[in-house]
């Protein structure tokens, strides 16, 4: 199943002298259960693509389909993008992913509450997810009391909570040491395999590429599929 399909995306920032063409006809697919890496030098347009897929920063041309449904076409939205974000897409960023005044457990439960799920089962689900990601014993801690790796695990638990078909992660391990970074990448793979989620990860770390099923490379706004060499 194609969790996300992007066709021919164009994105331009600014205009006139300060115009930057960040995406130049980008197309890509991520299937359910697949872990996809987005590589490329800084400023090549990876984040622009990811936030485009995440419906935060719609490209002005091209189409995006989520689970076979058209959600964006040439900058025009089909349906409520915020509603799609909270129910269909999980987000993990480099840092500052968590609401600082909510405990780990509440951060996970928050996304369920945003989806109008309030019942007692949301408490169990949040706890189970934290345990699944190895931070069950941290559920009552606040973000500032957690290490960087723990914070990312909580963020992944939150991304998973509404059981979205797609998780987008932008350099999620950049703030972690290589050992913990690798552990997080492996978690993404586990999540993809066990939950059937498509996971798209922007990364610079070539040492963890063996974790991924598919690798794309971005260069000056142009995306191409790379061969797995590892």
């Amino acid at each position, binding site marked *: 199943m194609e969790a996300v399909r992007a066709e021919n995306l164009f994105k331009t920032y600014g205009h006139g002298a300060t115009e930057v063409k960040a995406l130049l006809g980008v197309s890509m697919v991520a299937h359910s259960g697949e872990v996809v890496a987005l590589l490329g030098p800084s400023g090549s347009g990876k984040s622009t693509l990811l*936030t485009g897929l995440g419906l935060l920063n719609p490209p002005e041309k091209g189409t995006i389909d989520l689970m076979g449904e058209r959600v964006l076409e040439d900058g025009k939205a089909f349906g409520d993008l915020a509603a799609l*974000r909270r129910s269909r897409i999980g987000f993990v960023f480099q840092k500052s*992913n968590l609401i600082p*005044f909510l405990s780990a457990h*509440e951060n996970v439960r*928050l996304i369920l509450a*945003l989806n109008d799920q309030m019942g007692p089962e949301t408490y169990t689900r949040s706890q189970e997810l934290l345990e699944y990601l190895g931070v069950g014993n941290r559920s009552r801690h606040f973000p500032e009391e957690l290490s960087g790796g723990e914070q990312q695990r909580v963020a992944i638990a939150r991304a998973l909570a509404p059981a979205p078909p797609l998780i987008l992660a*932008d350099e999620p391990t950049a703030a972690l040491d290589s050992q913990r970074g690798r552990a997080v990448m492996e978690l993404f793979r586990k999540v993809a395999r066990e939950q059937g989620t498509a996971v798209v990860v922007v990364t610079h770390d070539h040492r963890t590429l063996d974790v991924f099923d598919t690798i794309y490379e971005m260069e000056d706004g142009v995306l191409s599929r790379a061969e797995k060499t590892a």
Partner: protein
Amino acid sequence: MNLAMKDLRRQKVSFSATALGLGLLFAIVLAMGGIYRGLVEDATLLVDHLGADIWVVQRDTRGPFAERSTVPPALEDRLRAQAGVASARSFSTATIQRIVGVRSLRMTVVGLSWPEDKGQALPLVSGRHLRDPHREVIADRSLGLALGEILPLGDETFRVVGLTQGMLSSGGDGLVFSTELDARAILNWQAPEAKRVEREGRLARLAVTELDTLSNQDRLRDERFNPPTLAPFPANAILVNLRPGASIEEVQRGLEAWPDVTAYTAQEQRDLLLKGVVEKSRKQIGLFRALLAIVSGIVVTLILYNMTVAKTHDIALLKLLGARSSVVVKLVLNQGLLLGALGYGFAILIAKFLFPLFPRRVLLGPGEYLGVGMLVLILVTLASAAGIVRALRIPPTLILAG
């Protein structure tokens, strides 16, 4: 999930302190209203209590509460002879400041017309009303006098036999009730030396008249002698009550024909008091109150706006995660309303426990509480709106920038 409350968990102290500060502001807004109502109440308390239908005062004066007004007590008899008049009693009042023991007491002496009025109608909190036409007083508790305490006034001493609560003059001084005769004696008392000097003066004045006989000189030297040709102590007004069915306007019109007095209905006397004593204060208090309301509004707006700015990152993250606008609106509005409610709660506590210690009466009814409550609600809602506008403008992609 109540994000507003969860956010406040970690800043209970600073949030409460902010609410307390606001509470003080709201309390002052509340106090302004109460002080004004207290002024009105104090100003009209005595007039209302005395219950006269018509106040007869010195011609062209505004009565004893506005200025010096003197009328001869004998005017009582002329008034009693008027058609429609049931009773007429002289009334004296003045504010005096005396040293009693070590205290400097400022009090307003009020004469009750013995024997009809013994102070039965006064709201006594302890003791009794007057039983003796002389040397007994009922005093207001605000003066700090104790029941049974002896109050030396002039060359007489007076026993405090009863205590009232909240009986104040329009100037806010505690009232002391005595019989009318005692009141006049207190207010017109002169030191023995002054009397002696006056006797000397009388002898000197006698010396230039043809009445300067030895026997007349002897009489004037006798300190108990009161020349019948000299006026008795004047009263300040005569209080008239009418027979049932008599028209106040008619009697008043009849008295207006008298060249030596002016007659006011009780309502006119009341209005005069309010105009004289309260009018200027009312404007001043109103202005002050409006300014305070504006200051409170600005302060609340700044607080809520800054609380929103401090949460910029969190709000951006909520939006990125797909939160509805209503979630963001509630986060800001709930904190605004809570701040208002808490501040208002503190204001009520301050009003309950602090206002009674104020030197002037602060009279607060449900109307004042409701009015200030509404004002607080409007202020925090408007102030929250400023925060909400700001919050809704935060772009979700802000998260990615840093």
